[in-house]
């Protein structure tokens, strides 16, 4: 059985590699499309700042000029946004007319409200016609605010009884002391009142540690290094559309590639080699397994080549968890091979298989999130997407590539994919065996 399996796989691989035309279709065309996509969306060597920047407006707030500049600069340096400061009326118009994808409205008296511990409400207006880009803005802003709130919470939990409002006796408002000229703040310490000075020193110290905590990326929006930043927060979608499209398209190409390999079973039936094989010392299980192994080897190679090409040329992060990436590639290819093996075996001709698999691949590609992120679909369809094997492959790839996760974070996806692969293979062999019993296997 094992030597038979080896012979079958070796023969198939030899034929695939010898067949220049199919190699071109298998690797050349996907690579070309990857390249075009990379130039359009990607970063890295060819892509510059990556995806064309999302226009957004900022309005309101009473940020000191320095912070305002920092915020603008930080947002623009992500490469994702072009920022326009305006007032809230104008911002509303810009969003309504589609000139910006989103507007962030800062509350009035932002700083003093913040230092007094009042609620600070940011408003984000999204362009309803631009789900993806507005969604990216929303997710990023949510992330920034989340960090902000976390740090504030950390501070408050350290000093639960700290009420900044108490300092009425100070000559200047507290925020002036701590956000303004440091020399002035130090001068305020030269008071004769020893108790007050001690109190002030303590405040100063706490203020310094608070200030320090605000120096963290959330406030500064120090986002030059996109990759570190993305790794910190996994709730937001890809900041680079190519991060999403590369694995999604690689999986989609892989599905077609798998069809091409499994389809060979029908060619072998038509040229009678399958019948001849079945008169030899191999059973249908070995033949099915042989095609499966060939498909998995070819398809996972194809996936890895496309991902690595994307990584090398366009700076997609594929190298962080190579083992996880390879395992996901093999598991996804395995699930695909099993599913298409079933589809190939329930029909009797190559033509019928082509028709069936074409419809299937397009529908599954759509539902599973290979054309656009599945989160953009209505919740009902979202649930349907989970029955597709490619959904799980996409999800695992996106965890690794977009969110920088490792092997242990994709165990769920790997389990689902291997289950589909195993059960699918068993079903395929069963169908094949029934065909043989009826005399229509070959």
């Amino acid at each position, binding site marked *: 059985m094992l030597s038979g399996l080896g*012979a079958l796989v070796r*023969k198939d691989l*030899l034929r695939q590699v010898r067949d220049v035309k199919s190699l071109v279709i298998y690797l050349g065309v996907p690579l070309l499309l990857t390249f075009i996509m990379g130039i359009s969306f990607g970063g890295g060597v060819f892509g510059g700042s990556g995806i064309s920047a999302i226009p957004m407006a900022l309005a309101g707030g009473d940020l000191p000029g320095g912070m305002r500049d920092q915020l603008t600069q930080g947002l623009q340096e992500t490469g994702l946004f072009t920022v326009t400061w305006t007032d809230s009326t104008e911002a509303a118009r810009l969003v309504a007319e589609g000139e910006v994808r989103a507007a962030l409205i800062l509350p009035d008296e932002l700083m003093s409200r913040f230092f007094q511990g009042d609620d600070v409400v940011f408003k984000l207006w999204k362009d309803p016609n631009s789900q993806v880009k507005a969604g990216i803005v929303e997710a990023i802003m949510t992330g920034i605010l989340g960090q902000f709130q976390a740090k504030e919470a950390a501070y408050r939990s350290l000093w639960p009884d700290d009420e900044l409002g108490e300092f009425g006796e100070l000559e200047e408002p507290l925020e002036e002391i701590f956000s303004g000229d440091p020399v002035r703040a130090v001068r305020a310490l030269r008071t004769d009142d020893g108790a007050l000075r001690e109190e002030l020193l303590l405040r100063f110290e706490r203020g310094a540690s608070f200030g320090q905590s605000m120096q963290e990326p959330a406030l500064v929006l120090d986002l030059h290094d996109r990759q570190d930043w993305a790794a910190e927060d996994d709730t937001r979608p890809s900041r680079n559309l190519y991060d999403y499209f590369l694995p999604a398209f690689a999986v989609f190409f892989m599905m077609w590639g798998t069809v091409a390999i499994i389809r060979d079973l029908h060619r072998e039936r038509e040229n009678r080699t399958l019948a*001849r094989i079945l008169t030899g010392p191999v*059973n249908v299980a070995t033949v099915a397994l042989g095609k499966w192994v060939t498909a998995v080897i070819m398809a996972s190679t194809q996936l890895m080549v496309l991902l690595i090409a994307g990584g090398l040329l366009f700076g997609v992060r594929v190298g962080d968890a190579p083992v996880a990436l390879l395992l996901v590639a093999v598991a996804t290819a395995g699930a695909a091979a099993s599913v298409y093996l079933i589809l190939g075996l329930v029909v009797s001709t190559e033509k019928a298989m082509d028709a069936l698999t074409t419809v299937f691949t397009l529908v599954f590609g759509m539902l599973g999130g290979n054309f656009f992120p599945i989160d953009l679909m209505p919740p009902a369809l979202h649930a349907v997407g989970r029955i597709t094997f490619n959904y799980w492959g996409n999800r695992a790839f996106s965890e690794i590539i977009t969110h920088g996760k490792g092997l242990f974070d994709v165990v769920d996806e790997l389990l689902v994919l291997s289950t589909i692969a195993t059960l699918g293979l068993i079903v395929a062999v069963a169908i094949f065996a029934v065909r043989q019993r009826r005399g229509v296997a070959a």
Partner: protein
Amino acid sequence: MIEIKGLVKKYGSTVAVDNISFSVERGELFGLLGPNGAGKTTTISVLSTLLPATEGAAVVAGCDVAKDADGVRRRIGVVPQEIALYEDLGARDNLNFWGRLYGLSGKDLQRRTEEMLEAVELGEHARQKVSSFSGGMKRRLNLAAGLMHGPEVLFLDEPTVGIDAQARGKILALIRRLNEDGLTVLYTTHYLEEAEQLCDRIGVIDRGKMVALGDKDDLIRQIGDEDTISFLLPPERLDELLTLSTKWDLVGDVEHRRGCARLRVRDTARVLPEIQMWLAGQQLPLDHLEVHRPNLETLYLNLTGRALRE
């Protein structure tokens, strides 16, 4: 070596093989002769475990085809009627694959492949893609592929179909040689000459039924060793011929069909000149005067009332 009892194979309502029984001894070269659609391929498919029989039983090389398909598969070689090869691979790659499938590897595989390439005279084309082969070359490689693993029983399904006389001669010679080395062969064909030349025993199959079975020479003797003489004769002269023929010791009656008289005679050397003289004397045409020696064609015609190649 091969034993078939009451084999029936139906495709839906089509009865392709209808209650066939025969056996082939070890070392025998058995010919299964029949026209298109007779059921030859179907019989081989059942024997090679590709198709389940509808009824009946078959044992090949000691293994029951229904109960021990694996045992059968290990012991047989099959050369299908179609060229069942990978056209996108070279001759050597093809043979290597079929050898590996049966567990050959390394030096053994290499040696066997070269041996078979030599045997079918394709050594010079070993690297060439099969798609660029001529029909005869493909046929030879198709045969070699079925021999790679050294089977005990070889099923050959019309292995010479569609190739010229020279290529056919080579294939037949190889088969004869293999048989002399002890290989049991079941050979199907619709070429009479092949069966006559090659086989020890012959089964004639027609529309799924075995219409004759036995030793080749016995079968021919069955029809008798009389020759058949036929010539054109207008119907109104038949009476004269009948009177004349009483002294010729005929086998059976004189037949007259479509303006043609046929008579079966024991002593052709004596009768033929007399007929010629009579025809000449009567100013009747001499062309179309023919003498048939009995052969499988005659047998087939007698059995089915049809010519083998129609």
